[in-house]
């Protein structure tokens, strides 16, 4: 289980911004949690703390009972293999000089060290899993659509079969049809892998559509965190109700 306990994160800017305040959250195997909140509520900061990318000002992150201390976490291959994050901006998250194949193969090469034949087979299977045609393997990110770039990022994150996956605003910048396809893909990936999955979103409709559990974040605090059956009635906090009233029904 991946647990964040009493996380606070302050940035050393002139305003002394406190992005996360005493937030606690747990990612359980097989459970898809959606962390929802307005832009600037601290969702991405909390997800990056959970992923061990940035250090909290206070609080602890425990992976299977062991503390993750950034930035040392990045050097631990085992942790990288077990915990992956799909970054928000897919266009920026892919090296412009790398082909699709090379991008997906990179974690396999670094973290699994498979023979080349097995690597090729694994990349092919990952591309198939995220519904990317094999002929895209030699293309560069600039030659892909936003949806295809997102799929490459997802395939790359799945490469080492992580037990914990974080999707940061997985559908941002995508049109409605592509949004639905990516959400369906994430759901399928989650169900097949059985990984503990955290989705970051500012759309309450996406949260209701996807979540086994919803955590609602406001001004750096988690104001509500409960299991969700897909019905808006699951959420009772006034701020959650406010977000529900503002949502547009998911197409």
């Amino acid at each position, binding site marked *: 289980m991946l647990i964040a306990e009493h996380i606070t994160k302050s940035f050393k800017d002139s305003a002394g911004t406190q992005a996360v305040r005493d937030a606690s959250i747990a990612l359980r195997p097989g459970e898809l949690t959606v962390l929802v909140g307005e832009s600037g509520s601290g969702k991405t900061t909390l997800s990056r703390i959970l992923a061990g990318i940035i250090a909290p000002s206070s609080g602890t992150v425990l992976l299977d009972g062991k503390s993750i201390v950034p930035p040392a976490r990045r050097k631990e291959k085992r942790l990288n293999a077990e915990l992956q994050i799909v970054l928000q901006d897919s266009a920026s*998250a892919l090296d412009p000089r790398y082909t699709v194949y090379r991008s997906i193969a*990179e*974690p396999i*090469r670094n973290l699994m060290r498979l023979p080349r034949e097995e690597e090729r087979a694994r990349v092919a299977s990952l591309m198939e899993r995220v519904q990317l045609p094999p002929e895209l393997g030699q293309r560069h990110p600039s030659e892909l659509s936003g949806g295809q770039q997102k799929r490459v990022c997802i395939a790359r994150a799945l490469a080492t079969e992580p037990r914990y996956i974080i999707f940061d605003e997985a559908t941002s910048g995508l049109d409605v049809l592509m949004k639905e396809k990516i959400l369906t893909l994430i759901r399928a990936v989650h169900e097949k892998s059985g990984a503990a999955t955290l989705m970051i979103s500012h759309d309450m409709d996406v949260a209701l559509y996807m979540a086994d559990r919803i955590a609602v974040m406001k001004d750096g605090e988690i104001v509500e965190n409960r299991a969700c059956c897909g019905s808006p009635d699951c959420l009772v906090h006034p701020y959650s109700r406010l977000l529900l009233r503002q949502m547009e029904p998911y197409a």
Partner: protein
Amino acid sequence: MIRKTLKNPQAIVGLVLIIAVLLAAALAPLLAPHAPNETDLTKKFAEPCADYPLGADELGRCELSRLLYGSRASMSISLPVLLIIALLGLVLGTLSACGGKRLDAVLSFVCDTFIAFPQLVIAIAIIGILGSGARSVIVAIIVAMWAWFARMVRSYAMLEMGKDYVLAARLAGCGTAKLIFLHLIPNVLPQFIVYLSTGVASSIIMVSGFAFLGLGLGPETAEWGAMLNGARGTIYSHPEMLVYPGACILLAAAGFNLFGEALRDILEGEA
């Protein structure tokens, strides 16, 4: 990018000049009608003729042959120097950008210290310590210029470090060395090549400048700066003896500068 380069008139002019200089350097033994140091006092200040197409200098040496061999001297120093500076700049600049705050602070301090002095002052000091000669010139130019290249690479690498693909590479298990050689260097290389091509021009001018000041290659060496220095006494009687090497320095430096600036314009257009 290659197509855009070939459609850019400035790049074409630069490229033609660069190729002309490189061909002159490579084919000097075939093209030169005489050996560069072959003296014939009976031909002192000879007018241009079939045997001496650009005339002869005060020792009766063929001016054209010396100019052709002079391109060799400039290129044989400038290009290896730039290659070494390029490697130093790329490795130290990217290491500074992604090697942590402490290493960045140390490397930035060292770079700032070198950048604080004019390049020529540093180079003259180094030649003063090491003495004249091609090896001293090479060391002097490297010491004088490396910090500018490292600083430039660092600033581009810092921009790249802010992009998510660097974080994604870290999460994909890339250590610092892999990050530098597989991600950062390939991504800063296009801008770096632009800077490098203008750096070649500076290096050519520096090599010739040292020779002109009598600090670099010996006066007997067929080198543009040394030829310029040697011809100072004939400025009123035979001004062409100054014009020829001066024009060679100008055209060679202009070629690399024009090409580099055209490349920069093309890259900025693509960005």
